[in-house]
């Protein structure tokens, strides 16, 4: 392993993994193992989706990578370093601060890391433009729909240009039309402002539409059961969802997921 020099160096010298999990296990206290022997690597530009039944530890993987909790076994490196700097998590619920306006919510990570006011203002404007919420800057979170809140949350995450974006079922609570729309927008945003993503979802179709790799987890304890490559090139048009290749991959992945549940 020669990737120990941080992300920039790594990109220049070797397109090696941006995030690597080696033999990672997790248990909370004396409880049963939530994750066992997770070995996995994502490369710059990857969009990896994790699917699996409830309780298979999908979200825990993201929380481990984000550094919110420590692994009980194994090793996690991000950009070759053990610290999770440059990683941002988009939470299940949008997790906006209700007392801050939309612009102030997007601004928060920039403010916390000490950017100057003028830099912050410019970046917030850019981000709100990117997620299509320029007109909502002065609103408070309670004035937004679920989909809009999620857009704000994504804008907030992207404001610091993270090299790795973790998305924990971000669209799970939305209706299907809004969810599809946000999926398309997320890919469009990624065309403009590239990021590497680990994405947790319950929806096989969503996973296929968004990602180039799908990791299927089996439960009790969570293990990687199978990985499926998604061969469709980016950018992906919405019509991809109706294409025969898409549908046959959907059938394959759904079957794989089912066999994980009842082997």
């Amino acid at each position: 392993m020669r990737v120990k020099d941080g992300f920039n160096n790594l990109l220049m010298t070797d397109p090696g993994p941006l995030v690597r999990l080696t033999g990672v296990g997790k248990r909370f206290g004396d409880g049963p193992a939530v994750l066992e022997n997770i070995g996995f690597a994502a490369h710059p530009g990857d969009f990896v989706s994790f699917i699996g039944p409830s309780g298979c530890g999908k979200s825990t993987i993201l929380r481990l990578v984000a550094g919110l909790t420590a692994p009980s076994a194994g090793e996690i490196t991000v950009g070759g370093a053990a610290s999770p700097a440059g990683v941002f998590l988009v939470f299940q619920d949008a997790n906006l601060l209700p007392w801050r306006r939309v612009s102030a919510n997007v601004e928060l990570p920039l403010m916390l890391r000490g950017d100057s006011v003028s830099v912050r203002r410019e970046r917030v404007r850019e981000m709100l433009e990117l997620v299509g919420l320029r007109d909502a800057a002065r609103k408070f979170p309670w004035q937004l729909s679920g989909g809009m809140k999620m857009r704000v949350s994504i804008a907030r995450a992207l404001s610091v240009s993270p090299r790795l974006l973790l998305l924990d079922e971000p669209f799970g609570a939305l209706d299907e039309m809004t969810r599809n729309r946000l999926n398309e927008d997320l890919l469009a945003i990624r065309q403009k402002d590239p990021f590497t993503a680990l994405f947790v979802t319950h929806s096989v179709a969503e996973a296929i539409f968004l990602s180039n790799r799908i990791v299927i987890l089996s439960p009790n304890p969570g293990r990687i059961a199978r990985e499926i490559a998604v061969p469709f090139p980016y950018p992906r048009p919405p019509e991809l969802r109706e294409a025969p290749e898409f549908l046959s991959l959907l059938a394959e992945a759904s079957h794989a997921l089912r066999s994980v549940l009842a082997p």
Partner: protein
Amino acid sequence: MKRGSGWILPTVTGAVLVALWYAIKGFWHIPTFVLPSPGEILEAGWQERRTLLSSILITGRGALLGFLAAVGIGFLMSLVMAFSFRLKQSLYPYILMLQMTPVIILAPIFVLWLGQGLPAIVAVTFMICFFPVVANTTMGFLSADRGWGELFAICGATRWQEIRHLRIPAAMPYFLTGVKIAGTLAPIGAITGDFLAGTQQNGVGGIGFMTIAYFSQLKIPALFATGLVACVLGFLFVGGVSLLHWLLLRRWHDSFISKGEG
């Protein structure tokens, strides 16, 4: 019910109560030194207006100082307790104990230490206002959403940034609830204070002091009028605190927004 018509019902209730008052007094021929009529009370209040105005200022000053001290010290104390579990464990039982000790027992002790007058009155008010502020604010500091804490952790926020930009705003609704309760108690505290530890100048003291004075002089309508004056002071406090509440929370807090419009 339409907005703006909110004053009709209370006014009707008031009129009915006043009528009932007169009826009871008239029917049983209750003498004024037992139950003065509302008119007699207002008249006595008007005659004693200079005295009562001074007394409201004296009591109001004690109430305000005690209230502000309780809010300030209560806020800081909660902040400290919220961030040190050990400190909270060590201090909280004794704060509770102080709250359990009746103020009428503490008042003579304060007089012993501070003498009759303003300092003792402020101390009594403080004792009565302190607990609701501490209890609510501590709760507020501890009840910030876990997800928000994780957001700050991911952003690499320092402890101070977390306190300033997360804990304090998240605790605001709780803190202001404590302040509101303290606001209703402060005039009562100060009146109790000058009832037990008040002083007078040329026969004029705080509201609590005047109660004793009027009672001993058998100026019964004026005694009732001090009750009215105490109400006015109470409403001033509650009004001020509600205004603060509104100013700080109206834009974002659930208690001021109707979700249906979103």
